[in-house]
């Protein structure tokens, strides 16, 4: 593929789990080193869109390409951070062991068996340092707070050394202080990689992304500056309370119930 080609390219994509369509005629193109945010009500199709990009689901019609290939083939270039409540909080595992999972899928015999070498361990250490969690390397995952777990999962996605970072609700359990730090980390990463995230947190979104993709069965793309109450109301289908924190920077929509 040419270096200028889009990282993600969806053309006329429709998807339905059974009969009811979840996504209809979606066209979306994300350029290299762009950062976008996917917003929309619960059940609006955000996660489905992410799963289509990851190749976990196949569209009924239309075409999905990542780095000019099928999503399945492009997988190893993608770092994915799922929502952490999907994990068993009691699972006996250390922070390092989780981050090392980002190194699975390497070519070669050792890679096939899933054995980690020194370079893998270094990559895991670096990824943890990048999110400021290196001092927690040997700690059990179960003892961490929500925000710390979130950062470990971001580190795991970084440990894939991806060209595209997909984050599902990166600020869900994070307090304002960590959130500000997260913005810094992601802005820094954005110099090296394309970032796509799902978030309810519109304040966070407007600070760091270039475009906002509103998903509610159909997809509308807005530049981040234009995130107004009208645009949000349109996509959330109704009443949204806006809390204005300050005049210049952030506007925050309430989370939908």
């Amino acid at each position, binding site marked *: 593929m040419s270096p200028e080609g889009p990282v993600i390219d969806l053309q006329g994509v429709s998807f339905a789990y059974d009969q009811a369509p979840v996504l209809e005629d979606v066209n979306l193109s994300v350029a290299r080193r762009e950062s976008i945010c996917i917003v929309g009500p619960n059940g609006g199709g955000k996660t489905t869109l992410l799963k289509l990009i990851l190749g976990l689901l196949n569209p009924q019609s239309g075409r999905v390409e990542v780095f000019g290939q099928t999503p399945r083939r492009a997988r190893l270039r993608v770092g*994915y951070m799922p929502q952490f409540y999907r994990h068993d909080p009691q699972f006996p595992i250390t922070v390092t062991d989780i981050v090392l999972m980002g190194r699975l899928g390497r070519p070669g015999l050792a890679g096939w068996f899933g054995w980690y070498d020194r370079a893998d361990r270094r990559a895991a250490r670096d990824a943890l340092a990048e999110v400021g969690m290196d001092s927690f390397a040997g700690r059990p995952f179960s003892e961490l707070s929500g925000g710390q777990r979130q950062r470990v999962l971001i580190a795991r996605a970084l440990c894939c050394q991806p060209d595209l970072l997909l984050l599902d609700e990166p600020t869900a359990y994070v307090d304002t202080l960590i959130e500000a730090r997260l913005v810094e980390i992601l802005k820094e990463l954005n110099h090296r990689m394309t970032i796509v995230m799902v978030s309810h947190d519109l304040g966070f979104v407007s600070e760091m992304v270039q475009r906002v993709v509103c998903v509610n069965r159909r997809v509308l793309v807005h530049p981040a500056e234009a995130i107004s109450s009208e645009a949000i109301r349109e996509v959330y289908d109704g009443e949204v309370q806006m809390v204005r924190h300050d005049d210049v920077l952030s506007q925050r929509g309430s989370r939908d119930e």
Partner: protein
Amino acid sequence: MSELFDALGDPDFPLMRHALFAGVLASVAFGVMGTYVVTRRISYLAAAIAHCVLGGIGAALYCQAALGLAWCQPMYGAVAAALIAALIIGLVSLYARQREDTVIGALWVIGMAGGLLLIAKTPGYVDPMNYLFGNILLISRHDLWLAAGLDVLVVGLVLLLHNKFLAVCFDEQFTELRGVRVKCHYLLLLCLTALTVVLLVRVVGIVMVIALLTLPAAVAGHFSQTLRQMMVLAVLFCVVFVTAGLGISYPYDLPTGPVIVVLAGAVYLAVAVGCRLLRPHRT
């Protein structure tokens, strides 16, 4: 306990030695696979596989007695049935879009009932209780070799593939995205669990084998921070339960299987309650 040691030392009485060897050999596989079963939360699937084993035992006994196939040992039938059951149940749990538990429950009882029917139609008298609840009198030297072989297979594969198994148990979706064939590894885990279950059918029986698969690992889970630690501790707990069970059952002339299981269950409950009382803030 001294009666047990006397019995173990008696050269004319290999029974207790065989039982103890069988128990210790099986404990290795039980501790390792039990850890996966507990953390991946598939003890219900493991129990279904265990019960389907009776179908294979019944079929093998029937082939031996009614069809004259002398080589068709019950343990071979058990191994075959366990593997088939693991694959079918595994595929159902992967692909059934709903009511997975109903389908698995149905397979569970069909396997068991099929076995009982075949045993009933087998010429001569076979007591299904020996297989359902275990009977250490039935352990032969041949069974010990079988147990040792299965141990080597289970532990060998786990040593080779531990990182992938760990990833599959912790986060299937992420692991799939790293290009690992998650479904194959999940089915392999279930097959290894199935082989492990067969190891202790003679000692504790089909009905109670699931207790020894899950309880030592569950106890170990309270004291472990990694899966590796949990496996080592689970093996140790399993050895202790089996040995103590044999030691207690022998002098009092009690059935060994239930003694082992009651012991394991009591320790599990004590540890679970104890940890809850000592660390009330931990959820």
